[in-house]
């Protein structure tokens, strides 16, 4: 066991080219998924929060339910949608990084909406009323209110990144683990484990943990600053 860990560390220290290329793909795919989730999720959440208590409750329930979706189910659904005879087969996105990012977007968007919607819901009504009564335009109102819940947004963003970065099911099914293209840390770990190359699997696992912990550290630094 210790020998395997030693070999794993050696792979990292000696900068195994493939390991670092795969790390780059993982970070790029997960970052694009999270950026898309933030870009879509924040305006959507703001609209849900301002649509009355009933819509907010239903939105919260849907977001919580969708956040609990198993990654393989998301991957499988997306596979049927993107496969050649699926409704979006013509896009030829299956087994591409874009398909993997879309899968991770589906996984992270509900998480982001659930956390931010909860935070907006907890703001006193007087916050929005103060903006309305001072004649603040709808676009500026959204910016002011989202700024009030920025720590929740930061928390949700990093949680979303962690979920995207560490998921395996969707990436494996819609990415296909193609060497040099759609191979990510999690799909490569699964492959090396099946092959019996424990050292490489451990090295990849250590990098995965290091990146996830770095994201977590950044989140805590931001929240402490705020």
């Amino acid at each position, binding site marked *: 066991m210790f020998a395997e860990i030693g070999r794993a560390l050696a792979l990292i220290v000696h900068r195994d080219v493939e390991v670092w290329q795969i790390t780059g793909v993982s970070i790029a795919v997960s970052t694009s998924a999270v950026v898309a989730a933030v870009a879509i999720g924040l305006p959507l959440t703001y609209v849900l929060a301002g649509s009355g208590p009933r819509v907010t409750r239903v939105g919260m329930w849907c977001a919580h339910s969708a956040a609990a979706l198993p990654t393989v189910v998301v991957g499988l659904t997306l596979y049927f949608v993107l496969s050649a005879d699926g409704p979006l087969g013509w896009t030829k996105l299956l087994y591409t990084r874009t398909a993997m990012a879309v899968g991770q977007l589906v996984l992270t968007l509900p998480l982001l909406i659930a956390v931010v919607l909860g935070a907006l819901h907890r703001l006193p009504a*007087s*916050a929005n*009323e103060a903006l309305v009564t001072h004649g603040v335009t709808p676009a500026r109102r959204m910016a*002011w209110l989202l700024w*009030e819940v920025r720590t929740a947004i930061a928390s949700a963003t990093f949680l979303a990144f962690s979920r995207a970065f560490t998921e395996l099911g969707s990436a494996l099914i819609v990415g296909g683990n193609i060497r040099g293209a759609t191979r990510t840390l999690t799909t490569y770990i699964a492959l090396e484990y099946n092959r019996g190359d424990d050292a490489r699997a451990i090295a990849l696992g250590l990098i995965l943990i290091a990146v996830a912990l770095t994201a977590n550290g950044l989140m805590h630094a931001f929240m402490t600053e705020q």
Partner: protein
Amino acid sequence: MTRADRTLIRTRDLLVGYRRAAAAVPDVDLSPGLVWHVTGPNGSGKTALLKTIAGLLQPIAGSLERRFAQRSCRAIYVHSTPYLFAGSVRRNLSLARPAREHLESAAATFGLGPMLDRDATILSNGEQRRVALARAIAGRPQLLLVDEPEGGLDEEALAAWRACMVRAIEEGDTALVVATHRPIAFDGIPVREIRLLPYRT
């Protein structure tokens, strides 16, 4: 121009409240140059009336006609427990995007000059109320609706608030509506009472 021509708000058979009627409002024509004092026991709908006039609540029944001149800030409502946004006092005062001189004048009126760059959310209750009032006044509203304006203000802030409102009213471009249980007096400005009673079906 007659006072009738300058009416900002005209109500007829107005019922206000949250989802269900809380108060029947006597017919009023709100015009500048006066202080309108909304009185009534707890739960009589004072806050609901102010919010309805400000456009934050819909009337339950009756009519409410707004006759504001074309200007960006028409009616500003100040909560009895105001919400201040994260960031500096200056950021809060800039909410209605006032001209710089209006912002600085409002800050000076309430003695906020030295604390413009302080975090607004860690101020005392009285200081937060001063910021909320200054924020509203900086927006130069045609109609200022203030819920319990004098709670938490010290004597100096009270005097500043009254003097500021007297000046604004005398200049003729602001009408003031105040909801409070206490008697109010503004030097030389007539006060009209709007007495609310809980609505009974």
